[in-house]
């Protein structure tokens, strides 16, 4: 028995995988014990509370200071403070080598003189519109000395952000405290002298002459703060404390990371420029014969294509007798020589792809889309057969040749059966080729960008990468490979692709990758292998995308943010570039998913029936996979598996159909009168299953299709403890 096909074995393997995911050494070593000392909360705006906000601030510091094990107990409470004082930190105890505070008390003003904003969701910065990261060089390299949100709205406007104040006060307990003897020892020359192994050694961070604060007005640890802003720890703030307390490093982060999704640079899938790099597409080229028919009705037409340059054929427009709006199903066969003389024998013909479209009525161009694009090399003669499953072709008597700079089209003939029946020749099929040159501008791309450690946060298993397209439709890549590589924090990209991705791991590698994208939302691309993030490094992501095209919908781009990118596009297969153009910004927005529950569909159906899902495979929840547009009141089999595949079923008589998983289990259902059926999958309430992938697709009994069965597209679910 194949152990991988046994659900119990898979579950066990998944459990083992989950518990062996490396835990960040950067994040597990500082422990802040939080003791709620109570006190009366003052009148404030915002529905948050001190405990939630204080905990979020503690989490932040725990994740951003890299240290040998250290435990700090902080008691926090509301209490009156004199004058304009917002909060006060008192050191209660310190000890150890190196010396560190071990107990402290923080009191937040409740005498009514402070106007507080209590954020109910402190890890969501949506109350502010602008994030500013200022940088300066203090002698040890350029570092971030300001990380501030401004442009407050709602309750955050005009009030002091309690979350930012908590971050400041906790910062005192980690080194910058007048009662801390390590601070007193460091302050002799009125600065904090940063030394290795901490980053930016040689930096001299100026200190306030009268107190335990930085003399950097943009920093979190400045002794006063304005209303309407949210300050978070900058690299300068982190370094000062790391040096004073002899912690080994810092892991600057610009976000709170309270969920499974980490956004670079932000979570807004609706804003940002639309850029056709790295996945973008453009309108395909075309070459048409004629659509003035005078003959026809056989189901199969034949013609030859002779490319003058390498091309991808993405689809056809055909002329059909089918009524306007009727669905059209067909199969594309090709051979490596002319069709002439080969119409009545299947020898040499290969089923290449199913095609699906909608009729525009006779003598109009009806668009049919290929499930996968067909690559055709220049100089070749490729015989093509368009075998209609449920419609009839119209054509024009006689032979004709059409050409442009890219391709020549020689037509043609027709038969009443698939490589059989009566042959009619010469006949000019009424068609348009929809294709793109292999070296079309946005067709082939190599692209790299950096996910910053400051945005990625703590270590974990990255099970998904999501992008934000500006258009909807079916995006197809003939080849799609995504690799990821750890690089030192603050990595500066080389112009050489291989340098940036050295030591990388392949997380997705697929031919004829089909990605159903929805505009202005986050779309997970279908990562096949998880990437174990170490919690301290940057990650270079490389996207190698050949044959970018949209088989449905409108060509378009993806939302961009502000990280650097390295790119090369428009290159032909034969001359893949090794270097690219380095841009300082405008990298595509990315959402890194750390074991988020997620579901999406992939691949294509070879007939009318389609599959999708409802909900996500979240632990403890029920997840549903559907078949729709199937044959009414017919048999439908849902096939479940744990490993993705794309196995051609053509050899089994199901032309251009695919099996999309390893078929661990299957269940028989009966479709409704609307051609619908579903299957519920209950996900165990255990985080041990996080990251497990569940693949499904359906087989539908359909006497009108080749082999009497059609198969849907695949659905991919990733188990997680929470939704992104």
């Amino acid at each position: 028995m194949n152990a991988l096909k046994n659900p119990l074995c898979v579950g066990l393997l998944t459990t083992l995988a989950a518990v062996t995911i490396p835990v960040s050494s950067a994040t597990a070593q500082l422990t802040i014990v939080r003791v709620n000392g109570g006190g009366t909360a003052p009148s404030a705006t915002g529905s948050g509370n001190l405990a939630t906000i204080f905990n979020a601030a503690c989490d932040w510091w725990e994740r951003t200071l890299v240290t040998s094990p250290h435990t700090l107990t902080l008691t926090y409470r509301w209490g009156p403070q004199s004058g304009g004082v917002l909060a006060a930190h008192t050191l209660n105890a310190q000890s150890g080598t190196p010396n560190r505070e071990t107990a402290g008390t923080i009191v937040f003003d409740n005498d009514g003189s402070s106007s507080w904003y209590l954020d109910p969701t402190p890890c969501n910065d949506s109350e502010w519109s602008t994030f500013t990261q200022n940088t300066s060089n203090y002698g040890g390299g350029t570092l971030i000395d300001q990380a501030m949100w401004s442009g407050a709205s709602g309750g955050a406007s005009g009030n002091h952000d309690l979350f930012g104040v908590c971050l400041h006060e906790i910062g005192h307990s980690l080194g910058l405290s007048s009662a801390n003897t390590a601070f007193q020892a460091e302050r002799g020359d009125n600065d904090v002298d940063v030394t290795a192994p901490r980053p930016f050694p040689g930096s001299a961070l100026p200190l306030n002459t009268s107190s335990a604060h930085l003399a950097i007005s943009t920093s979190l640890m400045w002794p006063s703060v304005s209303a309407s802003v949210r300050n978070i720890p900058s690299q300068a703030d982190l370094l000062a404390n790391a040096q004073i307390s002899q912690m080994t490093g810092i892991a600057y982060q610009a976000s709170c990371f309270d969920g499974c999704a980490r956004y670079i640079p932000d979570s807004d899938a609706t804003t940002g420029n639309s850029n056709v790099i790295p996945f973008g597409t453009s309108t395909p080229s075309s070459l048409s014969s004629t659509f003035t028919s005078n003959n026809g009705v056989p189901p199969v037409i034949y013609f030859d294509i002779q490319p003058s340059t390498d091309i991808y054929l993405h689809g056809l427009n055909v002329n059909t007798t089918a009524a306007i709006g009727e669905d059209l199903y067909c199969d594309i066969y090709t051979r490596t020589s002319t069709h002439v003389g080969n119409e009545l024998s299947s020898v040499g013909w290969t089923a290449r792809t199913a095609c699906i479209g909608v009729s525009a009525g006779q003598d109009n161009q009806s668009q049919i889309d290929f499930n996968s694009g067909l690559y055709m090399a220049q100089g070749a003669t490729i015989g093509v057969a368009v075998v209609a499953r449920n419609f009839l072709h119209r054509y024009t008597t006689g032979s004709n040749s059409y050409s442009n700079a890219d391709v020549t089209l020689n037509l043609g003939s027709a038969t009443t059966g698939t490589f059989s029946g009566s042959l009619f020749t010469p006949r000019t099929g009424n068609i348009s080729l929809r294709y793109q040159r292999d070296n079309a501008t946005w067709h082939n791309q190599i692209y790299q960008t950096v996910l910053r450690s400051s945005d990625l946060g703590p270590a974990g298993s990255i099970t998904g990468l999501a992008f934000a397209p500006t258009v909807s439709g079916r995006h197809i890549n003939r080849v799609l490979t995504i690799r990821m590589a750890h690089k030192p924090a603050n990595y500066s990209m080389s112009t050489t692709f291989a340098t940036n991705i050295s030591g990388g791991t392949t997380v997705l590698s697929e031919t004829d990758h089909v990605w159903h994208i929805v505009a202005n939302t986050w779309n997970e691309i279908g990562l096949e292998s998880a990437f174990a993030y170490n919690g301290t490094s940057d990650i270079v992501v490389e996207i190698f995308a050949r044959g970018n095209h949209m088989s449905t919908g409108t060509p378009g781009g993806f939302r961009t943010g502000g990280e650097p990118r390295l790119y090369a596009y428009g290159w032909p297969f034969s001359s893949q570039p090794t270097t690219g153009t380095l841009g300082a910004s405008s990298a595509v927005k990315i959402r890194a998913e750390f074991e988020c529950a997620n579901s999406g569909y992939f691949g294509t159906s070879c007939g009318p029936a389609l599959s999708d899902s409802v909900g996500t495979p979240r632990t403890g929840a029920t997840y549903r996979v559907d078949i729709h547009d199937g044959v009414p009141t017919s048999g439908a089999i849902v096939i479940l598996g744990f490993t993705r595949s794309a196995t051609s079923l053509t050899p089994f008589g199901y032309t251009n159909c695919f099996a999309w998983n390893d078929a661990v289990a299957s269940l028989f259902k009966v479709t409704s009168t609307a051609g619908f059926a579903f299957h519920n999958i209950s996900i165990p309430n255990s985080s041990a299953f996080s990251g497990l992938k569940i693949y499904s697709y359906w087989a539908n009994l359909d006497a009108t299709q080749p082999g009497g069965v059609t198969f849907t597209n695949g659905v991919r679910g990733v188990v997680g403890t929470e939704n992104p």
Partner: protein
Amino acid sequence: MTTRALPPRLAGKLALTLCILALSAAATNSQGAAAQDPGKQGATKVEDPRTIALQSWHGYLEQIGWPKDMAERTAPRFLGELSKSVDNEHGGQTITFDGSRPGLRATVTIFLNRAGNPVVAPVVELADILEAR
């Protein structure tokens, strides 16, 4: 010359009187000596409040983990100036010294009786503060 013995009753009274006088003198001498010994009961009486406050800082800093020499060296920076002195229920003064500066709260409050001696433990506050801008 004629010698006569005192009657026994009178002699007893005289002896008692002498004894009382002797004890009184001894008692008087004892009180005077104590008042002149600076190393005993009257030590705090001669300290000024600033010294008492400074010693309070020493004690506080050592309590939160400062080495003795470092505490003694740094405490004067925290002491500041006398900022408040009010009568208290012990017949003495409650006195606060304030060494606070922007970003730092450093105060010590001592509670003295009529004789100028501390009557309860001092209150020391050393806090890092954040102010509204």
